[in-house]
């Protein structure tokens, strides 16, 4: 009984450490907020195994994310954590949590939605696309037609 309780506490600690890792390119949100973190488990050999999924096939942040996770796990007492990347099921912006939507908007990035994004600054729905591609694989460039501010929006994917 005691062993099982200890294991469950240890697993909760592993989850907490992995969940808190921020996205290196969008530090306002965590990998859990973005749906990149898929699973955390404790292996028979005692090491933690963290499963992540890439947002885009070529997202260069994935390498840094894997390193950041290993470092965060180490700091939380899980040495030599294994970081595993899985492709299926394919990541979708539907996995962004409500917290991710709120934090992105607060950071000036319009959260993903079907149809034209609303301006994260003034809230206007009158916006236009400048470019389908932005500074990172997951964002596109838009401009608000009401306040005239350009802004980034999370692609709906």
């Amino acid at each position, binding site marked *: 009984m005691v062993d099982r309780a200890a294991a469950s506490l240890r697993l909760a600690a592993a989850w907490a450490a992995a969940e808190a890792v921020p996205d290196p390119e969008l530090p306002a949100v965590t990998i859990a907020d973005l749906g990149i973190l898929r699973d955390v488990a404790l292996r028979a050999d005692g090491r933690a195994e963290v499963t992540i999924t890439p947002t*885009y096939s*070529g*997202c260069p942040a994935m390498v840094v994310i894997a390193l950041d996770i290993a470092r965060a796990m180490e700091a939380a007492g899980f040495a030599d954590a294994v970081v595993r990347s899985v492709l299926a099921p394919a990541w979708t912006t539907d996995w962004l949590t409500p917290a991710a939507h709120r934090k992105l908007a607060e950071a000036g990035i319009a959260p993903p939605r079907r149809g034209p994004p609303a301006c994260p600054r003034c809230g206007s729905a009158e916006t236009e696309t400048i470019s389908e*591609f*932005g500074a990172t694989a997951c964002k596109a*460039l838009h401009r608000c037609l009401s306040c005239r501010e350009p802004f980034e929006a999370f692609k709906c994917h």
Partner: protein
Amino acid sequence: MATTSIVVAETELVLALLRRADDALVLGHRLSEWTGRAPTLEEELALANIALDLIGQARALYQYAGELSGFDEDQLAYLRDAGAYRNCLLVEQPNGDFARTIVRQVFCTAFTDPFWRAAMGSADATLAAIAGKAAKETAYHLRHAGAWLVRLGDGTEESHRRTQEAVELLWPYVGELFEADAAEQAMIAAGVVPDPAALRDGWERVVAALLERATLRRPAEGWMQTGGRRGVHSEHLGILLAEMQVLQRTYPGAQW
């Protein structure tokens, strides 16, 4: 000095994977050549983003082909000569001007878009998973290329002329997209990869509609180039690989 090339035992599955991986890597490398010289900042970001997606798709395919053939993704990319590359000739054609790059992009993605969607139903679970990611990305790439084709074709007199020239120049390379040799046919019969020939009508419809909106002429049927899938390439691939592979060839196993 220079590292010896590897020889990959090409089972039917490994060959099918290398063909798609090489398409993605070579096209991704071509698009990366625009970095620092794209016509606008937005296009700089767009072409680099598409290149990253393609190289990412290539990595996933090489990792899988590598598991089956005993090599890693870097060895497959850096230590095969042009004659061992299995990409189609279209993707290795030089960037030319922006119009030519966009036309190549339209011709390629009008094929890969339905290809990856069909491959999501592959009997091979790993390939189906890779296809699931690639399909979403490719649909986005096709939208980008199609919008530019219309803008350039239906743009100024000069942009129209250059785009029409690019269509004529690259047209002889589209036939190869729909080829399947005996090894490919075996994988098609096993439900592992989609039959490219079955995608031809859809490709024709998408391309014809885009050309029409762009006020461009579809070239007449004629001689089609072939050879890439069995390693017979245009001179351009060797030059591309020389640049891409020089570091690993000179400093074997270098990492940073």
